[in-house]
């Protein structure tokens, strides 16, 4: 820093050390003061509540919602087992909640794969436009990301309902007599997630595709590679960080999605997010809901760690 050098010029080594120490202390004071408000708000109202959830997950469910202050691992047992009706000490393995988790994984996974298949060519096309058009494309892809997810899910409902646009059109041209039931199915949820999170896929892909040195592509062509080979052997390997980042950014919110499945999914095809919300609403089993939330959180953490190890520590630099 310039201020250290300025102070250092005429000083002896002792005063120099003292001044350095002073500057360091003042800097520490400054950053503590500046960081406190943000960290305080997030730690108290964002992180501490997560520990309450951890705590709640080891309590008994209250009869009318909330919790009883008794230690119990029932919440975690319920996840995998049913208690016998006549003898509560006998446990039967019950996969129904596991199925909900599996369904969420499959639906979010399908949405992620399709997002990648559609998003990659789109991002590549964007990244190879001239600078001006590129900004317009970026704007057009980012805009839906900032519009209300609820409104967008609702718009999707209008399109795929029985009386919606797609069925209306197909019946009008006479391709079908009965509307195809799309709304309130896992298909609708996957479509909704695809629609909702497509920008999350395109943007990181674009970021890594934009950095590709096209001299490598040229070299490939010089060595008689076909366009397909260039894509497979040069472009896709170089955009790997973007592919992984995009997939994780779509998969994580898809896995815990709440609004989209609540609107587009049927009552029978719950996803994790809805299961958790239900436990804090209608079903009123807070400890069980807390346990589910923690399991979801753990899964997400694993994916985030993969993400962090792929993108590296480049973002956590100073200044």
């Amino acid at each position: 820093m310039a201020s250290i050098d300025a102070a250092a010029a005429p000083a002896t080594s002792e005063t120099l050390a003292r001044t350095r120490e002073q500057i360091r202390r003042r800097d520490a004071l400054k950053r503590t003061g500046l960081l406190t408000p943000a960290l305080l708000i997030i730690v108290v109202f964002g992180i501490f509540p997560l520990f309450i959830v951890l705590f709640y997950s080891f309590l008994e469910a209250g009869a009318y919602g909330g919790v009883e202050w008794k230690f119990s691992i029932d919440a975690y047992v319920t996840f995998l087992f049913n208690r016998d009706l006549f003898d509560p000490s006998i446990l039967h393995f019950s996969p129904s909640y596991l199925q909900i988790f599996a369904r969420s994984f499959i639906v979010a996974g399908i949405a992620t794969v399709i997002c990648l298949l559609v998003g990659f060519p789109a991002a590549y096309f964007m990244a190879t436009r001239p600078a001006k058009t590129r900004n317009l494309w970026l704007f057009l892809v980012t805009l839906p990301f900032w519009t209300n997810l609820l409104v967008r899910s609702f718009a999707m409902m209008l399109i795929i309902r029985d009386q919606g646009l797609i069925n209306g059109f197909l019946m009008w041209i006479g391709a079908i007599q009965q509307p195809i039931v799309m709304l309130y199915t896992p298909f609708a949820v996957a479509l909704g997630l695809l629609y909702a999170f497509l920008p999350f896929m395109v943007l990181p892909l674009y970021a890594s595709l934009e950095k590709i040195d096209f001299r490598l592509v040229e070299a490939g062509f010089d060595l008689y590679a076909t366009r397909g080979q260039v894509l497979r052997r040069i472009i896709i390997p170089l955009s790997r960080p973007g592919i992984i980042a995009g997939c994780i950014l779509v998969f994580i919110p898809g896995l815990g999605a709440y609004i989209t499945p609540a609107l587009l999914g049927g009552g029978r095809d719950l996803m994790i997010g809805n299961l958790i919300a239900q436990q804090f609403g209608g079903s009123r089993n807070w400890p069980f809901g807390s346990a589910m939330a923690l399991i979801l959180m753990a899964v997400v953490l694993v994916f985030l760690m993969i993400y962090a190890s792929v993108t590296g520590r480049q973002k956590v630099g100073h200044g």
Partner: protein
Amino acid sequence: MAELAPPPPFIASRRQRRMLDLTYQPGFRGVAYFCLFMLYAPIVVLVIYSFNANPSVTIWTEFGTNWYVKVAANQYIQNAAITSLKIAVVATIGATIAATAAALATTRTLPYRGLGTAYVIINLPLMVPEIVTAVATLSFFAMGRTLLGIDLGLANLMLAHMVFCIPFAYLPIRARLEDMDRTLEQAAADLYASPWHAFRRITLPLLTPGIVAGAMLAFITSIDDVTITTLVAGPGQTTLPIYIFGQIRRGITPETNAASTIMLAVSVLLVSLFFFLAQRRKK
């Protein structure tokens, strides 16, 4: 290969031009336009049908703004909009101030241990799934109510929103601080400006576009939130998205289309402004 051949005197066809384009991949253009179509078609349909005079949501008859008139006259929607605004304004102001301070602390200080941790904490609300944050916040306030008898009313929602608005406000402000030329700040220090004076007269004016951008992102994030608000909101704390959410679940009416379109318009307006500011910043 076409690239190796000497350039032809003129390029006759689109096909030939493609052959010469290093970056061309067959079909990618089509997919890109398909993406745009997919992203915008449902929204456009929603907006068009909100101007349908007919009470049917899917049969178009004639243009009419009667549903907007109905929305404007709806007492519930008015109240919900006011609640939304109250929460968003407080959350935005709080989050922007906290985020600006945090951005200064992570860019305008000597390197220190714990910087990485601070960075992770500030961005944590983006990483925790929304539904987990929602139930955690609900449990937190419920605990406060039962154990300590504290109920802050609408401030519950304001604080909950502030948490997830901070990272959204932080990112553009930090980006701006990193892009800013530091020589002006250093010149001020050389001319014996006190740190506060230099901040007020140099850093803050230069940082303003970043702060405005951050505040806008925070505002949009707050005003659009459904998941966390649905779970945390008590009786009488219905925000506009929560009202629409309830409406959709009860059955689709054109009034919902109109209310949704209004929400859409607010986001589009703010994001366009944000982009405009960002574009100008680069020049």
